[in-house]
Each structure stands twice: as C-alpha cells, then as structure tokens.
C-alpha cells in the first residue's frame, strides 16, 4: 500500500516535469532542431559591433557558437542554411536595465535590502518576453527596483522563452546589485501615509548616510571574517566564526570587487556623491543607470571608470528628469565612458534598435558606436562580453536577422537566435496564427463565460497585468504595479 502511494506520489510530482520537458522538446523541434548541428546564415550584411560591417558575409553557427564569419563559408551536408540575401544581421540586443520576468520589483520595506534576490521571482511565461525576442532582444539585466538606497541583487538572463526559469539564467555572469539615489530611495513620491512613520532616509543627505552606514558595517563585518580566517590559518582552534549576515555579505563582495554596483541616479550631484563614497570605501560603480545628468559630470564618471546606461531620449516624466537631454549618450561616449542605451520598459525593450539609432541623430555618434550601445557596451558593463555582444568567432550565436538596416524604422525582425537556436521566427509565428485564432474563438464560445444557474456572476473584464515600465519609479512597496502611463 505504501509502495503504491509512493508510486502515485512520484507520478504526481514527475508528471508536470515530464510535461515541461515535452514542451521544451517541442520548442526545440519547432525551432528547427538546429541546436546540436550547424546553421549557415548566408549572404547577409553583417553588423559585427566589434569590427565594422561586412557585406555579403556568411555566419557559420556550430554547437551554439559562432564558428566562422566571412564570405563563402562552407557548412556540413546536414547544416540548416538560411538565405539572408538583402537582410541584415546584428548581435542579439542586450538590455542593461529591465524588470521583465520579475513578479515583483521592489522590496521597499527597508532602505538596505541587499539580501533580496531577483532570481527568486523569475516568471518565464510572461508574454512580453516573447515580444522582446520579436524585437531582437536576447539578454536582459534584471534589476531590483529603486525604492532603496541599496536594493536587491540582479539577475542576467537570456530570453529562452518556453524553457524553465533556471535555463534563462546567464551562467557565469558576474553578480550585481542595484543601488538608487535621489527621489526614489528618499521616498518623496507621495509615500507619506498618515499615521505611518516615514521610512528613513527622506533626503539626499540621508541616502548618502545610509550607503555610508551600510558600507561601514560591511567593512566591520569583513574584518571580523578576515580576523577569523587569520586565526584559523594560525591554527587557533578556539576561533569562533562570526555570525553570517545575508545583508552585508553582498556588500563585502562589492568591497572585494566581486559584485557589480548598478546605481539608479538622475542628478549630477548625486552621481558625484556615490563616486565619493565608492572612492572612500575603495570600490567601483560598474554602471550608473538612467544617469540623466551624466552629461554634466561626464569627466568625473570617466575618471572613476564607471559605465553609464541611460535612455536614448526619455525626459520630463518627473522633476529629476527635467534636465535629461538626448545628447547625453554622445557627450558621455566622447568623454570616454562606455555607454549602453537601455529600456527600463517591457515596451521599449522591443525596439532598442530604434533607441540606438537616436544617438546617431543626437550628437552624431557613428553607426558602430550607436550599435554598441545596445550590444557590446552592455555586454562589457555586465561582464559578459567574452560570450555575447558582438559577432565574433567563439562567441555565443545570439543573432538577429532584420529585413532592413536595424536603425531604419521600416526594419522588422525575421529571426532571433540564442546560442544557435531560433527563439523567434516571424514566418512560424504567422503560420501558427490561424490555429490560435480558432482556439481563441472556441474559448470565447465556451460556457465558462456564462453565469451558472444561481451561481456567481463572472467578473468584469480587466486589463492584463500591467507591463513593467519605469518600475523603478512605482510607489508601491513590494507590489510593482508598473504601467505604461508613467
């Protein structure tokens, strides 16, 4: 009896896993079964992002990597051949600031939440992920919100839509953490609920002090571990290990240069403030996010060695963004800063190619400089440029085939590859539509939409879960509640 029960239990537990596996298999088959073998993309205009544009070039993909790039490449007999004559190929687009896939954004209860991890709330089924693939985006830097001076830990993912969340995670990407300065961490956005004490800090002074306090504690904590390890190595058997502190551990990693700081910021003064603290405690800010007034302090950012990840041209949506100018990327690039252009929006993440094109218009960056803002530069900023960000032999075959130059408003994505597999294919998408439409109509006709005799009324229609956009700026603690209306 117990045996039977165990068997049943095993079945119950395993069945969904099998189902998922089958689905993943199906996706792989649908993708053309090319993951193990070779794919040859032929006769394309290839925008490498690292070494210029190649005309009439082929790209050979083998085992998920770029095996060769150049004219007249030969592939094996079983290789899948994609004729890309008249088409353009770019590296997969990398979005250095995203909240897609996160079921919740802000752990806003404390001003230091370095222990919270975005990887614990990944939702791989969000349809916006597919829509981003359909815009050529393949890699996302999933950031915690900006409710806190020191927020939670980030997760870098590839959009392997259709797979379990664990497969999305970019293995080997250096860990990072979100910081935030200014209006959001000081909770000035109407968080003053009568009867509820205000959360510290409430000023930019307090934000500075909060970060300083946290790193002072982290330094003490690090010293206690260093002392303990030193005692251990001396053979001191009486040494007692310090109590682990999950809040301070990530900050010690920052002090040791093992965890990247991605800091939300707007105003020039707060950018300088964080640089001062970082210099004082001996760590580097990896990227300033948004950094809308970065153009005012470009030389200081460059001297510190930080990267910058602004919007292309968003401005005026809040007081802190009133001095944002679309020339920001160009000014900072010319100052020697590595700049990426990000979306911070499930919507804009679908057309970062157009956002990149804007930095040519505003400030006159070259085509390759512009392309790098959404490919190679974010890869460098995230420490994954050995794997992704350009079309070079040995890198992951994360590629996008476009119908026209990707900086043209008339361009459309035909296919998006991640590690040689097709994760978006417009032709397939179109081919599936009639079936989906039929299924939808069946569901709409189904009795489930009618109230049962004497039963409860069906609910009123509601909008879909709001997409994440500027979720950094959303007031709710814990509840993201983002929307496109900003």
């Amino acid at each position: 009896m117990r045996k039977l029960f165990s068997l049943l239990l095993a079945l119950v537990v395993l069945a969904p896993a099998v189902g998922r596996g089958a689905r993943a298999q199906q996706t792989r088959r649908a993708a053309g079964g090319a993951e193990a073998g070779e794919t040859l993309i032929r006769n394309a205009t290839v925008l490498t992002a690292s070494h210029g544009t190649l005309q009439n070039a082929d790209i050979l993909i083998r085992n998920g990597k770029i095996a060769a790039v150049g004219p007249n490449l030969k592939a094996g007999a079983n290789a899948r051949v994609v004729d890309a004559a008249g088409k353009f190929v770019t590296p997969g687009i990398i979005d250095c600031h995203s909240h897609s896939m996160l079921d919740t954004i802000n752990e806003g209860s404390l001003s230091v939440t370095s222990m919270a991890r975005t990887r614990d709330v990944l939702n791989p089924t969000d349809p916006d992920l597919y829509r981003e693939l359909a815009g050529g985006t393949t890699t996302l830097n999933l950031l915690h919100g900006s409710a806190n001076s020191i927020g939670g830990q980030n997760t870098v993912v590839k959009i392997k839509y259709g797979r379990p969340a664990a497969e999305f995670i970019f293995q080997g990407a250096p860990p990072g953490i979100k910081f935030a300065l200014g209006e959001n961490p000081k909770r000035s956005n109407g968080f003053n609920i009568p009867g509820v004490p205000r959360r510290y800090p409430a000023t930019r002074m307090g934000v500075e002090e909060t970060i300083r306090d946290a790193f002072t504690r982290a330094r003490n904590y690090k010293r206690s571990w260093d002392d303990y390890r030193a005692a251990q190595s001396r053979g001191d058997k009486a040494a007692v290990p310090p109590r682990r502190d999950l809040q301070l551990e990530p900050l010690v990693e920052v002090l040791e240069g093992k965890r990247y700081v991605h800091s939300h910021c707007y105003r020039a003064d707060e950018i300088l403030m964080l640089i001062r603290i970082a210099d004082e405690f001996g760590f580097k800010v990896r990227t300033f996010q948004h950094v809308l007034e970065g153009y005012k302090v470009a030389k200081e950012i460059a001297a510190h060695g930080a990267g910058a990840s602004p919007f292309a041209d968003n401005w005026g949506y809040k007081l802190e963004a009133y001095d944002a100018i679309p020339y920001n990327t160009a000014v900072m690039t010319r100052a020697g800063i590595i700049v990426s252009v990000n979306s911070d929006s499930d919507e804009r993440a679908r057309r970062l190619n157009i956002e990149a094109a804007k930095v040519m218009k505003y400030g006159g960056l070259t085509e390759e400089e512009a392309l790098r803002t959404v490919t190679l530069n974010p890869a460098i900023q995230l420490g994954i440029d050995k794997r992704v960000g350009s079309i070079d032999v040995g890198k992951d075959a994360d590629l996008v085939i476009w119908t026209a130059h990707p900086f043209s408003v008339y361009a459309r994505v035909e296919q998006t590859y991640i590690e040689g597999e097709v994760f978006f294919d417009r032709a397939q998408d179109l081919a599936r539509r009639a079936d989906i439409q039929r299924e939808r109509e069946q569901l709409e006709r189904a009795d489930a939409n009618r109230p049962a005799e004497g039963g409860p009324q069906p609910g009123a229609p509601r909008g879909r879960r709001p997409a994440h956009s500027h979720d950094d700026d959303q007031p709710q603690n814990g509840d993201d509640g983002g929307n496109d209306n900003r």
Partner: protein
Amino acid sequence: MKPEARSQKPVVSRAAVVGAWRSERGAWRPVFTALSSRLVARRTLVAVICSLLAAHCTLLTVFGQQASTNMGPEFMDGRPGTYAIRHARIVTVSGADIEDGTVVISDGRIAAVGANVTVPGGAETIDARGLSVYPGMIDLGTAVGLIEITENGATGWVDTQEVGDSNPNSMAWVSVNPHSAHVAVTRLNGVTSVLTAPQGGLISGQAAFLNLLGSTPEAMALVRTAALVINYPGLGGGGGGPFGGFGGQQGNITEAINTRNQRVEQLRKLLRDADAYARAQAAATQDRNLPRPDVDVVLSALVPYVRGERPVVFRADRAGEIRGAVQFAEELKLKPVILGGDDAWQVASFLKEHNVPVILTGTLNLPRREDDFYDVQYEQAAKLQQAGVRFCISSGDTAADVRNLPYHAGMSAAFGLPKAEALKAVTLYPAQIIGVGDRLGSIEVGKIANLVVTDGDLLETRTNIRDLFINGRRVPLVSRHTELYEQFKNRK
C-alpha cells in the same frame, strides 16, 4: 539634429542672451560680443530686457531654463518674412513629389510650389540641394502645454484634468503655456501642430489645435475649441467610472454593465439638455414672445457639438466601446472621432460603414491582452487602411515623447502600412480629421507654411531636421535640450 549645423544670426544672439544669466562665469560680455550687428541698435533695449530676464529667471530655479527656450523675440512676433526654399525635393503629400523644386513662403502662407516658380524679389533664399521639404507633422493625441512634468513633482504645472465629471466648458487653449519646454523640443523633430486635450471625467473639456510657435495662447491656437473630448464609458476601464484603470476594483459583469449604462445615460441626458437648450435659445431669438432661457455655461459650451458643427472626440479602445460611442454619436447626431482605437481594426467594417475616423494612439503600446499577437498594435494602422477606414497616427503621449511621432508611423509602415500612407497618417490625415485639412497637412499653395526641411526620410530616426518653418516663420533650431547640450558638451 545638429544645432551647430546652422548659424542663423537670431539664434546666436538669443543663445547668448540665454547663456548670460546661466553662465557659470557670470559674465555679461558674451551677450554683447555675440549680438549680431543687426541688433546693435537695439542693444540697450536688449540689455534691459536681459537684466529683467536674469532677475526673473534666477527666481525660477526650476522652470527658468525652459522659459528661455521659447521666449523669443523676432522670429515669433511681428510680420513673417518671405522665403524661397530652392532646389529641394518637395514631398507635397497631397500630390506627386517634386524632385527639384522651389517652395515660396510669404505672409505665413505657402505662396508657390513647383519645379519652375518665380522667386519674388526680397525673398531670403535657402539652398536646399540634397534636402527634402515636408509638411510639418501633426499629433492629435497630446496634452502639450497643459503639463510640464508628468509624475510627482510639479502639480502646479499640470492643468490636464478639472474636478468633476462633466466639464465641457473647460477649454484647453486658455491654460496652454506657450513657454513650456515641450513646445520647442517637439517642433525640433518636425512635429509642428498638435491637438492638446484635457483628460479625465466623463466630458473632459474642449481640446485646442495648436501650431507649436507663439508667445501667447492666442498666437498658438489655430482652432481654440477644436473638439469636445468625451471618455466613452466602458466595462472595466475608461469613462472615469469606478472600474477605471488597471487594478481597479473588480465587480461582476452585471454590475459593470449597469454602471456603464448609467454613465452613458448621464452623458445622453446632458447632451439632450444641451440640444433642448440650443433650440430654446434659437426659438427665443426668432420669437420675442417666447421666454429666453438663462445662459448656462455648461450647456452653451455643448451647443456647437450637439449641432454637429465640430467633432466630438471619444476616447475608446475596446471594440464594444468603439461601437457604443459611434452608435451613441449617431443617436445624438454628433460628429464622432475615435481616440485610442486599439481594437478599431476588429470593427473596421463598422467604422467604414459609419464613416468614423480613428486617431490611433497605441502603435507602440504593448498589446492589451496576453494572448494578442506580438504585432497587433504595430499592424493596427495597416488593417484600418486596408479596410478603408479614415485614420491617423498619434504618439498618444502627453508631451515629452510627442517628438517621437514619426517613429510610430514608421513602425506601422514596417508592419504593412504603405510608406506614403504612413506619412499621410501624421500630416494630411490628422489635419483632415480635425477639420483643418484646408489649411494644413500638405504642401499646397495657400496653406499655412508649416514646413520641415530634412536631410532624409521624415519618418526615419537618423534623419536630421535642417530647417523649420511654422506659420511661415523661420524657427531657430534651439530648444532646452540643445541649449543644455551646448552648455555642457565641451566641459573640461
């Protein structure tokens, strides 16, 4: 655009004026050294104005800079000049392109267009070899001038929504701030006219049609009360009802329908009252023996709309709401325009049959439903066009992103809308839909000279605006953004 690409004298002098009070060096010398010789005579006057401005702007720590951008003297007021744009590719929109032609601008109007036209004596000629001339773009879904900063910060500069449900007597044009930073930023990307509309409630108010140049609301408003704006009540959102918005309270479907019907009834009653009021007023005018009803500001504001003299813009996105709004408008003999129109393609034949135009505001929005195809919004315009529905494309943004209007049209063209139609959808079609098609939207003799000179396709992101005319005035390519850029780009 590159601000350094053109060095017009007024630009230099004005930039210097602006720079004077903002300059870190605090020196007044640049003002005078940079003043063009043409302005020397006016130097004293300018200096006086400068000191006044400097004092004023120091007080306005936040909004001071933007005030500078649009504050302008010679190009904005006074008699517009005579110009001839020569050797340009002229994209007339209403007719065929002219590969090498001339546009003559005089007294604010387009005086001549063609391959062989006589340039009047005294005209300032602009050699546009290798450049193109387009009509300025028009966005019918904005709140430019009513709102400076959208979130948490400057509510004193937000004038989009009145208190209460029915505000037909709220007129957007009276609270348009001509010196908003958005005005110059928007026109610098080729968007030269907007419909700026109040928001919220059931009847939000009356929208104004603005040309994006002028020192006063009077100068900017081409049509002061261009349309009545109604949020057509819907189920689960829209209409300002209790179910409005995402995450609103969930009721059951019967309650939602009852509430929707009550709100439609509320709207119907008000419009019927306005109709009765209009007839009573008219009757009293004709027959002195009849009692004249007291003037009612709410009802009298509605009169031109219940008479069908001006368009009524219904905000509606779902298919049911769109259909409801059109039927409602026909019942009350209104002249409806749909604003939003996400699901308009689903009721395209209905819209065609009733000849109701749509202002699409959601091209670059994420699809409304999780099971929508990824390109459902991108394709809306193409589907309406194929079905023969009158439509235009709007950015759907209040102010800051209105300048990106061409990329909304471009995306529609990437997904099936013919390129020429995409261009019309942001020029001629919006002009026609809002009733100014005889004055704007194409390059034709007699029309208002709102013209954009570009170095490429107007809808392409990489294209730069090289010259700009609004109301026949040559507009300096200067905005809050170019000024901040100039100030910081060479900071050592």
